[in-house]
């Protein structure tokens, strides 16, 4: 990385001029952002602006084609070992839960620690129970996902991601498939997580949550971040017309 400034020690995610195309379609158009260790960044913006794609680039569910993505000092390239390393450090929670329906809640959570980290079962299960308590559903451990409500499933998904003890958690609209009561359950868990000092990138339009929890916010539009700043700045003093307009629409 000659000629470019090295990321500071507490910059846990650095994206520089990231471009991505789907075929001919230019999704990410020179996107740059730096996330500090322990920060909670809320990402928002109109549909199709590339928020999900951005998040998926960070743990390389998608490849970017130009620019640099450096996660905890590991640059994402075609080196498959780097991809493996990054995926262990980054947990991800999806809009549609993606809980494994053929495994019990307990098996959902212990699968990766046992297979990837080679944790002994007893240890993995102990940790899983702690996590289930943390997300508030210890009594559901033996059930299958189909027996859980949406909110419970999403909490399992969070526990599952946390079981890998990631340094960073990515959330892609974690509550948009949920009913109002359930949204609260899930946001509570995320609030607690943010409080514990986890670095988080959250795509969400729950602005109440953002105002309360986020350190910084980033407004996406047409494949770039058109506005980025502290929560207060963005809410109270947005620089761009687009941001103002968008915020006025969703608040």
């Amino acid at each position, binding site marked *: 990385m000659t000629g470019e400034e090295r990321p500071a020690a507490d910059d846990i995610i650095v994206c520089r001029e990231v471009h991505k195309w789907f075929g001919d379609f230019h999704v990410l158009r020179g996107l740059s952002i730096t996330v500090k260790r322990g920060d909670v960044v809320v990402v928002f913006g109109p549909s199709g602006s590339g928020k999900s794609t951005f998040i998926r680039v960070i743990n390389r569910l998608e490849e970017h084609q130009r620019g640099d993505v450096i996660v905890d000092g590991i640059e994402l390239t075609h080196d498959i070992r780097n991809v493996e390393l990054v*995926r262990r450090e980054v947990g991800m929670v999806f809009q549609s839960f*993606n809980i*494994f329906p053929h495994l019990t809640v307990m098996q959902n959570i212990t*699968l990766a620690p046992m297979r990837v980290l080679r944790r002994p*079962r*007893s240890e993995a299960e102990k940790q899983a129970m702690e996590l289930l308590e943390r997300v508030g559903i210890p009594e559901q451990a033996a059930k299958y996902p189909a027996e859980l409500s949406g909110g419970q499933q999403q909490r399992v998904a969070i526990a599952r991601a946390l079981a890998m003890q990631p340094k960073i958690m990515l959330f892609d609209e974690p509550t948009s498939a949920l009913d109002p009561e359930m949204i609260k359950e899930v946001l509570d868990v995320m609030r607690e997580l943010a409080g514990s000092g986890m670095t988080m990138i959250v795509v969400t339009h729950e602005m109440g949550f953002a105002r309360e929890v986020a350190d910084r916010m980033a407004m996406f539009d047409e494949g770039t971040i058109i506005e980025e700043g502290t929560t207060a700045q963005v809410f109270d003093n947005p620089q761009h017309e687009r941001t103002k307009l968008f915020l006025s629409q969703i608040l």
Partner: protein
Amino acid sequence: MRILTYRGTPLWRDARVLRAVTQIVFVVIVVAIVVYFVRNVFEAADERGLKLGFGFLEEEAGFPIAESVIGYTESDSFRHAFIVGVVNTIKVALIGIVAATVLGLIVGVSRLSSNWLVKSITSVYVEIIRNVPLLVQLFFWYFGIFLLLPVVQESLRLPGPIYVNNRGVFSVWANTTSSFDSWLLFVLGGVVLAVAVRVILGRIQIETGRNTHPNVAAALALVLLPTLGWFLVGESPLIRETPVLERFNFVGGARVTPEFAALLTGLVVYTAAFIAEIVRAGIQSVQRGQTEAARALGLSDAQTLLSIVFPQALRVIIPPMISQFLNLTKNSSLAIAIGYPDLYAISRIMINQAGRAVPIMLLIMAAYLAMSLTYAIIGNIYNRRVRFTER
């Protein structure tokens, strides 16, 4: 005010009576038709001097059978000949099912490959094979491929040695000696030990997280014990038997006839195309999000496929797969076109030589129905298990 009551209901308007009567009439008609048919058969048989009994089964068959798993000579009874056919059918069906499943899995997964070449070739394979009658394919395999292999005297020699010619594939094989039985104990011991080691070490690995190398240990057990036994039992328990070209043919060793090979190839290639489609649909039925979630958790591609995708796809795949197994078994009756002595082919010879069309037809039907029933039972057991484990 008029009230139409209960007690006034005449029989012909009472729903319960009507249901009962309808069923009785239905049964009577069905039984009458069957009785009528059976009577016709008896009458016609009488008129034409056909015999309908099964007594002939004990008579000497007299005709030769080209290959048999269980041993057969012309002086054996018709009953034995029929059993030879059944066993031959089961043999080709079982081997065919295993091979077709393996091939079908490979092709099905390949159809979803990100490699365009692999994807297109497997698609072409599936689209061609599924759309051409199996009978035509069997003729092609047998007359167009297997019989056009070199003649015996010019056999292809593969390492082993394995000889390939149009009389089949001849391979080295091992013959047992008197010490074989004692050695077999060692082999069994090795298998038991290996399984035990694999299970115990596997469990330890899961419980403690330490890599205990369960597969390596099991493999060692599997190899060591029989090897030990080999030297302990004294005389070598197996001696190598190499096929040698005698005057007309290879003698000794193991052999696969071209008829069996062609039938098996035809059935496997044909059925695998259908299984591939089932596998593909099954895998596609697993939502993309599942794979992504697994990847995001750091599972490798292989782990994702094995512990996330396949278990979910299997629920969709198994039931239609079982019906493909049944199809394969039924299709093996086309053996008759290319000279493999399966159940149906032998039955037809029996009809000719014994002249008992009716009883033999009944035997054929019974044999196939028994096989279908077996598949149905397996399918039901699987469905019940899935239902229990799911929720």
